[in-house]
């Protein structure tokens, strides 16, 4: 099988190919290693691990030969560099974790390796997962494999899981892990024309994932199709006693949820998501989505989520407060960068000033401020109350409908450098994704169409807590209906 054809197989297809012995895990890994190298201009990877990938592929081959295949045996994936991988450089995209080789493996990646998956490398991201462009990494920005036709300017891959999304979209990984705190799986998936799922809070363990905002961080899968993402979720999910916020909920066979039947399902269309300056093309795509679901037998229902507009400021107060505390451990004492100065206090201050990028610094300062004496009630406690109202909105809504359909992002991918000077403009990228993080409910983005300038646009399905099955099923319908077959300008193996 020639390279581009092999690379073009999605996860489910590759899994079948391995089972059929159409090719070996080693061949697959070798091809993907080459793809990773080829995709270097995208800067989707910080640390490729080709040797490790081959060793893992060989182990998978042995099991495949014996007929004892594990669920993901031989499947090459990218790991967002926020997941601690034992003895493999883990940076969180930050200078402050320079040289950090964790002596432990995150629960989620450990589960993936035990399922037989193969590690291609650590994917680039926004520093400490803080961003929606993947341009704040110490290791340089990620480029979206998509470009506007006839326009040479590199575009953002979205963030913070931009490296993961770009790799998958560029066929330089079959699937990837990401984390979603305010939209960081769904928005890059939307910008890169692929599928990204933020599961229910607590579905996937946070143990070993570098923490950004503990009550909002959701590890989750990124893949090319809804089925691929369902398969990945099955391997990544599960209760972890080492994570006190991990949900004691059994893992079902998420693939089985893809029945293709949504007759009688009620789909909510929230009026508050029709924001000012909503691009006409996104509004049109959203309408098309409604039609697709109606044709499949679902019942669209107009709903109201009144607290929607307050979700972003609520998110930013809570996330930044938690982050300011979570990032206090980066102090030059026990791991990572240390900048010596005149005494201990200088060491702290210089290390953190040199180690944190501008966005991280902004967020840590605001987080520190909103928790500081005199402001806790006005900001943090207030935000937690509004959060309760947002969750209440969803709970009430899910008594009327089974899922909610909205666009994923208010725009397609923008040019690298555009918008990044204005923090608030950047924060607005997350306006449709953030509410699901606050309420902890599952949400998925699937590529549904192209913008006027030829870039992918995503539609988002949000569901009840722990009802990933419905979310995946509806997404599967949308995926079929949308029939999104467009490919990015850069594709590994395509020689361009």
């Amino acid at each position, binding site marked *: 099988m020639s390279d581009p054809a092999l690379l073009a197989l999605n996860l489910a297809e590759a899994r079948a190919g391995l089972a059929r012995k159409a090719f070996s895990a080693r061949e697959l890994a070798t091809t993907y290693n080459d793809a990773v190298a080829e995709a270097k201009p995208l800067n989707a990877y910080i640390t490729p691990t080709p040797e490790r990938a081959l060793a893992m592929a060989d182990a998978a081959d042995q099991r495949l030969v014996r007929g004892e295949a594990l669920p993901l045996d031989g499947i090459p994936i990218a790991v967002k560099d926020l997941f601690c991988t034992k003895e493999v450089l883990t940076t969180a995209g930050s200078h402050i974790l320079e040289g950090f080789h964790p002596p432990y493996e995150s629960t989620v990646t450990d589960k993936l390796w035990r399922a037989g998956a193969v590690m291609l490398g650590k994917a680039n991201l926004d520093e400490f997962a803080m961003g929606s462009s993947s341009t704040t990494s110490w290791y340089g920005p990620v480029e979206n494999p998509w470009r506007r036709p006839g326009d040479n300017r590199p575009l953002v891959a979205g963030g913070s899981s931009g490296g993961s999304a770009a790799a998958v979209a560029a066929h330089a990984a079959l699937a990837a892990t990401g984390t979603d705190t305010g939209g960081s799986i769904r928005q890059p998936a939307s910008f890169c024309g692929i599928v990204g799922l933020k599961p229910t809070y607590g579905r996937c363990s946070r*143990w070993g994932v*570098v923490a950004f905002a503990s009550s909002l961080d959701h590890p989750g899968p990124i893949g090319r199709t809804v089925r691929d993402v369902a398969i990945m979720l099955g391997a990544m999910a599960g209760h972890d006693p080492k*994570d006190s916020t991990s949900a004691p909920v059994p893992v079902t066979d998420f693939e089985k949820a893809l029945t293709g039947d949504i007759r009688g399902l009620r789909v909510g269309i929230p009026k508050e998501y029709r924001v000012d300056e909503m691009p006409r093309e996104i509004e049109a795509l959203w309408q098309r989505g409604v039609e697709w679901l109606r044709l499949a037998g679902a019942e669209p229902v107009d709903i109201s989520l009144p607290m929607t507009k307050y979700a972003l400021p609520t998110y930013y107060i809570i996330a930044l407060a938690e982050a300011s505390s979570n990032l206090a451990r980066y102090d030059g004492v026990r791991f990572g960068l240390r900048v010596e100065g005149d005494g201990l206090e200088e060491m702290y201050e210089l290390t953190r000033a040199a180690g944190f990028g501008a966005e991280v610094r902004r967020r840590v300062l605001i987080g520190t401020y909103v928790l500081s004496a005199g402001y806790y009630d006005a900001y943090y406690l207030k935000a937690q109350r509004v959060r309760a109202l947002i969750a209440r909105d969803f709970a009430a809504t899910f008594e009327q409908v089974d899922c909610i359909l909205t666009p994923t992002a208010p725009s397609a991918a923008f040019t690298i450098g555009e918008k990044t000077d204005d923090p608030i403009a950047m924060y607005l990228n997350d306006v449709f994704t953030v509410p699901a993080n606050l309420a902890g409910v599952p949400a998925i983005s699937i590529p549904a169409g192209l913008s006027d300038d030829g870039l992918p646009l995503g539609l988002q399905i949000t569901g009840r807590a722990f009802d990933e099955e419905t979310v995946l099923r509806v997404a599967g319908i949308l995926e079929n209906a949308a029939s999104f077959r467009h490919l990015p300008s850069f594709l590994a193996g395509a020689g361009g």
Partner: protein
Amino acid sequence: MIEGRTREWETVIGLEVHAQVISKAKLFSGAATDFGAEPNTEVSPVDAGFPGMLPVLNRFCVEQAVKTGLGLSAEINLNSVFERKNYFYPDLPAGYQISQYQQPLVGYGRVSLDMPDGTTREIGVTRLHLEQDAGKSLHDQHPTLTHLDLNRAGVALMEIVSEPDLRSAEEAGIYLRKLRSILRYLDTCDGNMEEGSLRCDCNVSVRRPGEPLGTRCEIKNLNSIRYVMQAIEYEARRQIEILEEGGRVEQQTRLFDSGRGITRPMRSKEEPHDYRYFPDPDLLPLVLDPAWVERLRGELPERPDAKKARFVSDYGLSDDDAGVLVAEKETALYFERVAQRRDPKVAANWVMGDLFGVLNRLGVGLDQSPVAAEQLGAMIDLIADGTISGRLAKDVFAEMVASGADAAAIVEAKGLRQVTDATVIEAAIDAVFAAQADKVAEFRAGRDKLYGFFVGQIMRATQGKANPALVNQLLNKKLAG
């Protein structure tokens, strides 16, 4: 009250005690808690604040804290919250300590102090909460570097805060001793101040009686009860002197310099800490099952106050003696074993007198006593049944300490059986009278003082084994003629 130059001053003291919880593993991680291990060998990546690490609460530590709360007759809060206390210090790896702030596990309680004058004083306990201990910074290993050992980081601590009800250094000492005793009774903390498993910070202020509370200073770095008392004495006088000269007491944190017996301000310029407390988002609120709490209440061992009352009522001991015997759980246990089916006062005297004397001399605790409770009891039986005299028992006891043998064996081996044969004693008396005829005459003439001389002679003649009561009886008879 302290006499100042111009007026009387009242000292107001509140104590904040940090008690290390007895448990195998730490409060939020599975690392061990043993004292004295090689540096950084009892550290989990969770304790070391590594990226991605998360806390998981140790159920037994919660149990220990609840038991302690019950032992302090305190309210147990079925709903409590763990909060992060954020500050930077090298021995605090995550840059925050997981503690409890607005909703602690245990609420208001009290400790009864047995004052020297026989009265009882109740000292309020404001709260008790669970928190992580920090690691250890060693500043003396190197001229320019501080060395960090994180073994202690994450060990469970109970912070026990007293109301500012204490009024003197002496009271503070009694309170600490009582608190330590309760903790040791409950086996929730070993109370060892030298090893740092019990630490005390004190808040001291002074005021003229009847006036509102004065500005207080916090004194840290106190690792013995003696130092606590010395620090309070010094600090109170320091503040009084300032106020009497018309100055103001500055609120500050001070350290106790045990070498010079003074308190001094901390050298680093200290900003008031802004700890930015907020509920730890890696944990959920702690909700306790009331039935579980009640079960713990039922399983509590008898505490010092109750035990003391029982010793007084059941054994007829004095308040003071009972107090001494119940101060340590092990002592009370030893005493009760000795006192079983014996005269409790005799048992108490032997335990508090001779046994304690021996333990002090040997410099060991009761757990290393050369004489077991059963052995002491058996010896007391030999006195009670007349086998040996009380006087000779002292010698027997000394031999038991030296050799570890039982009393009965020693009495046989050394032929120390008491002589109770009247004939033998009469013969001895006759022999003494024969040898000391002139003294007999003197006695009969009125020199009563010679009585003791005759007793001594008779005892010598019988190698001290004559039964004293019988000697008196027969001697009196013979002297009378």
